[in-house]
């Protein structure tokens, strides 16, 4: 029943996405439906998609993680600093070994915040909204402390060349990484015990506990997963921009949550899918690009994106209500 419901939602939201693409393609047929536009759209959505896959798990447990953008910055800062210190201060010319250590550092740094969030939520019993709001600020502060307030902007050029701008079989590597993460996430959520526990805890944590699921342990693992993925996203962002971009990523959390919820995952937990999240992430991304391509005035763009987001969810909700009343 639950699975069916979320599948139907996914179909309707997918139709919205297709409709948007069709409209923009009709308005500007020379610019929108092109391989170039598709490629850059996918590359630019890759980082947010990785964050949103993790966010899907958290929201299905009826939790929330506001800290992802800051954890991303913290992980990319740790990674950049580690690579630079390995290469004697400037890692621009460093090789694959240094870049690999950088990846590990980013993953560990991200996962560490995840463990901390998970412990505070489950053991100290502070609500996830507050815990992750706290680490949203704290992780950014920690990143600024580590970098002494300045962006680190020396990153191995080989890593930028391969991960940031390279292709494998014509597919950008950024997109490949995001694709692998998405597929693994979908597999984990739908076919494994880990995924079933995630749904069970989101539906009713007390019931989950009574049937013998270790809720504490599982929630810590879920928050660790989202932290780990934020670390990976931080490494990807580092490869794309070649700098830690400390001033940015302030709304990554909201963008990821919006993508997940647009994709039909319930903020109350227990319902959701990775496929929905993928579509949910691409709706705002397509809108932003489409408005620039069709020449909508800059001030109208955020208004229009907001309107479409609310309209899409309203449409989805009223369909669900109509269905439930039948």
């Amino acid at each position, binding site marked *: 029943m639950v699975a069916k419901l979320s599948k139907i939602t996914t179909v309707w939201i997918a139709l919205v996405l297709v409709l948007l693409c069709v409209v923009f393609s009709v308005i500007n047929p020379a610019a929108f439906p092109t391989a170039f536009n598709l490629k850059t759209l996918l590359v630019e959505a890759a980082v947010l998609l990785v964050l949103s896959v993790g966010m899907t798990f958290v929201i299905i447990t009826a939790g929330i993680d506001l800290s992802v953008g800051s954890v991303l910055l913290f992980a990319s800062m740790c990674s950049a600093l580690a690579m630079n210190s390995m290469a004697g201060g400037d890692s621009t010319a460093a090789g694959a070994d240094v870049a690999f250590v950088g990846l590990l550092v980013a993953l560990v740094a991200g996962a560490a915040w995840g463990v901390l969030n998970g412990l505070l939520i489950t053991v100290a019993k502070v609500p996830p909204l507050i815990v992750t709001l706290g680490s949203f600020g704290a992780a950014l502060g920690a990143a600024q402390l580590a970098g002494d307030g300045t962006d680190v902007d020396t990153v191995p050029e080989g890593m930028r060349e391969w991960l940031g701008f390279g292709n494998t079989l014509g597919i950008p590597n950024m997109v490949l990484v995001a694709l692998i993460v998405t597929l693994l996430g979908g597999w984990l959520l739908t076919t494994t015990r880990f995924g079933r526990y995630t749904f069970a805890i989101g539906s009713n944590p007390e019931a989950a506990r009574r049937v013998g699921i270790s809720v504490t342990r599982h929630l810590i693992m879920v928050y660790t997963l989202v932290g780990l993925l934020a670390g990976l996203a931080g490494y990807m962002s580092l490869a794309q921009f070649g700098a830690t*971009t400390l001033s*940015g990523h302030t709304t990554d959390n909201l963008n990821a949550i919006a993508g997940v919820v647009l994709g039909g995952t319930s903020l109350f937990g227990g319902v959701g899918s990775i496929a929905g999240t993928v579509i949910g992430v691409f709706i705002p991304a397509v809108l932003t690009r489409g408005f620039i*391509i069709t020449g909508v*005035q800059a001030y109208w763009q955020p208004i229009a994106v907001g309107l479409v987001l609310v309209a899409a969810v309203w449409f989805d909700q009223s369909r669900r209500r109509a269905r439930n009343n039948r």
Partner: protein
Amino acid sequence: MRRTRVAAVLVALLSAVLVLTACQGGAKGGDHTLSFIPGTKGEPFYISMQCGAQAKAAELGYTLDPQPPDKFDPSLQTPIVSAVTAAKPGAILIAPTSPVAMGAPLKEAKRAGIPIVEVDTALKDRSVAVSSVSSDNPKGGGLGADALAKLVGEKGPVLIIDTTAGTSTTNARARGFAEQLKKYPEMKNLGTQYNENEASKAATIVTATLAAHPDLAGIFATNLSSTEGAATGLRNAGKTGQVKLIGFDASPKQVADMKAGAIQALIAQDPAAIGASGVQQAVNALQGKPVERTLLPDMVTITADDQATLAKYAYKTKC
């Protein structure tokens, strides 16, 4: 029982953190202290400004007390201004993070008898500060238009990427650029897009514009995040060097990107001179000497092969 002990430990930890941060961030008072409140922590532009201000303050027998907010955000800068006002320094040097929102807390400081000097950005209300020192941003934007025109042979469509609508400094650069661009009849202005200080948004703006206008000739980016993002967007599109990118400011990253060929020219301010003149005006006000209401230090165009200008105007990450 156990829970209370845990709580006690937590409270102790929290208070330790508070005490530590308070020690680090406490504002200093006294007639010979000049509080320096830049727009944000850690930007090489403000660090270079602080270096210039610090040197000038030392020369004149004053101490500079830097109090940067974590982000370029009036809600973070306001409590700093209040704390500084309470500590009663000799004068305040500030880069207001909003032309309107920072008015109220700064008026409060003025009422407390502290002279205020605006550096870099300025309030809309001209009655609050005794002096404003900032780069002539419209003129800098104009320099950008001239440099871009030269690079693209005075023809083709160009795009402006600005930070947010409402940031007086960068908006003025964009305006100055658009104004000067009108002198080149064969160059078409595609308009201004805002990247909300996110490098990733700037990259999207560039690639989406390229999809609609494959003949895009040049881009003028008004600050660091827009330049970084634009460079990434061009690289994603495989158009690095082909589409000419003009950046504003000369942070180490931008200078390195220019040397690597991702950026073709930079319009640099002289933050150290802004900081030094700001201190001079503040001290003049304190000592009852005449104060210049408005000072506009010069800006320069730097290209990769101009080593001498580059060495002089590149921003620093530490003094």
